[in-house]
């Protein structure tokens, strides 16, 4: 601020510079080069490859695309993936909010450990996640629950990898919630249930929504943890990402790209949705 006013006093003519280039926000030569290199790398790594999926998916025309995407096996995979992802997201909305509540508002021995354990699914390699779930819920389960190679195995793997999302979006919002509103409501005679429903929960809704969107996206995209656990049986436990991989391994990249374009579409919708939710949150804050 101060440097900006030093360089260009208010009301002074722009001295030959275009008006939009205010001193504080102008890219210097150095930062322009930095931006150029960064955007080039980002394009080569992310944008051009993802564009190639759309282009390759369209190579065989609309009819070819439609045939691949609506083949019975792909439709079964889409139905399974979306169904289980919705189920797991619902579980996460409830359990994630409960866990966040316990982490923020409750005090008990082992709470710090619980806080660390929540992050494990995020860092644990997905193939190892599948392996460890197989240990507890597989053929040699000490609990006597053999869920391997069934629909339940898919839900289990997705619940494992998406656990941190709702917890980690709700936790900071709950932690920064001012006690004033709750105290005011209580002093006006609201009972506990009313305060939770009318004061606390509404404040958490944007965070819960953001977490739910993230966990749905992650569930749709999941691959690694399902490899060993679900058996990838066509029409039964085969998810969309496995369909893509099967097409890649068979050498039919156009079919793989067609199915992948569906997943890419979901990813784009999620990113835009998240952007909108975050803007709403920041406007409120």
């Amino acid at each position: 601020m101060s440097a900006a006013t030093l360089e260009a006093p208010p009301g002074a003519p722009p001295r030959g510079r275009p008006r939009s280039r205010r001193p504080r926000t102008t890219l210097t030569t150095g930062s322009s080069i930095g931006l150029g290199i960064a955007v080039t790398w980002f394009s080569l790594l992310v944008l051009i490859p993802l564009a190639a999926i759309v282009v390759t998916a369209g190579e065989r025309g609309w009819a070819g695309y439609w045939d691949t995407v609506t083949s019975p096996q792909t439709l079964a995979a889409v139905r399974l993936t979306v169904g289980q992802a919705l189920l797991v997201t619902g579980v996460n909305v409830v359990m994630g909010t409960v866990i966040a509540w316990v982490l923020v508002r409750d005090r008990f021995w082992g709470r710090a450990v619980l806080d660390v354990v929540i992050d494990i699914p995020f860092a644990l390699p997905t193939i190892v996640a599948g392996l460890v779930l197989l240990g507890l819920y597989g053929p040699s389960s000490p609990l006597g629950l053999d869920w391997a190679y069934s629909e339940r195995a898919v839900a289990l793997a997705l619940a494992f990898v998406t656990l941190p999302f709702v917890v980690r979006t709700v936790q900071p919002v709950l932690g920064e919630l001012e006690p004033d509103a709750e105290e005011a409501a209580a002093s006006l005679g609201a009972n506990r249930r009313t305060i939770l429903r009318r004061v606390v929960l509404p404040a958490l809704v944007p965070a819960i929504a953001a977490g739910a969107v993230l966990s749905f996206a992650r569930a749709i995209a999941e691959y690694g943890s399902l490899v060993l656990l679900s058996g990838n049986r066509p029409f039964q436990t085969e998810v969309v990402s496995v369909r893509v991989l099967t097409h890649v391994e068979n050498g039919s990249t156009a079919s793989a790209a067609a199915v992948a374009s569906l997943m890419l579409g979901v990813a784009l919708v999620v990113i835009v949705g998240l952007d909108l939710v975050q803007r709403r949150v920041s406007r409120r804050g």
Partner: protein
Amino acid sequence: MVELTTPVRWLLRLVAVGYVLLLVAWPVSTVVREAFADGVGPVLDLLADPHVVHALSLTAQVAVQAVLINLVFGVTISILLVRHEFPGKRVLSALIDLPMAVSPVVVGLALLLIYNGRTGWFGPTLESWGFQVIFSGPGMIMATCFVALPLVIREVVPVLTEIGDEQEQAARSLGANTRQTFWRITLPSIKWAVVYGVVLSLARSLGEFGAVKIVSGNVVDRTQTATLLVETQYQGFQQSSAYAVSFVLAFASVLCIVVVSILRPKEKH
């Protein structure tokens, strides 16, 4: 603040702890049990196998290079997004998050379509220059970079936004050049955010599976990473070896999480 009644508090506590225990803690502990079923000796023997040694060192090399690239790229983009205005900034800022939502399998396919040596858009040209991307190191590093791309940025951007640019402006008005401002003012204030970003990226990079599976070709002793080795060995009925390597990977990732959780509170004091 709302105070819950004791039974309700205990119920919520029990539900939360029970769910995390059954879904995460207990399953993860089985990897230790399975790996060390016959004691420590056999595990060390299995880990000394040349294929395993190669896979683990390849994973480490790929992860470290990918993290370094993401570190430089992430810090650069974060500073540009927070401190500068330029056309297309909002779009870029939203697109940066895209790798979080894209399936690893789609990432692998996307890179394959561009960089494979026969039909890729750029692959044949690059190979005529003697630079092979797919089924070799560069492709694996790119796939790993892609999936871990937003992690550094998501840690650094909020901190940069929060500290504001007054100190940087002061340094500049006192005659510091861009490089001095970066090394002496900006970097020290975002240090911890960068450290978290790097540790989280490292954990993510060590464990990448789907994208690397497609671009690497999974050739034993050449492009087989540790996670690919786990899959191959488990399906090839060498389960004790699969568990031993899984233990190493799980140990590394849990260590990353613990390091971040120990470092994080320090910043608040």
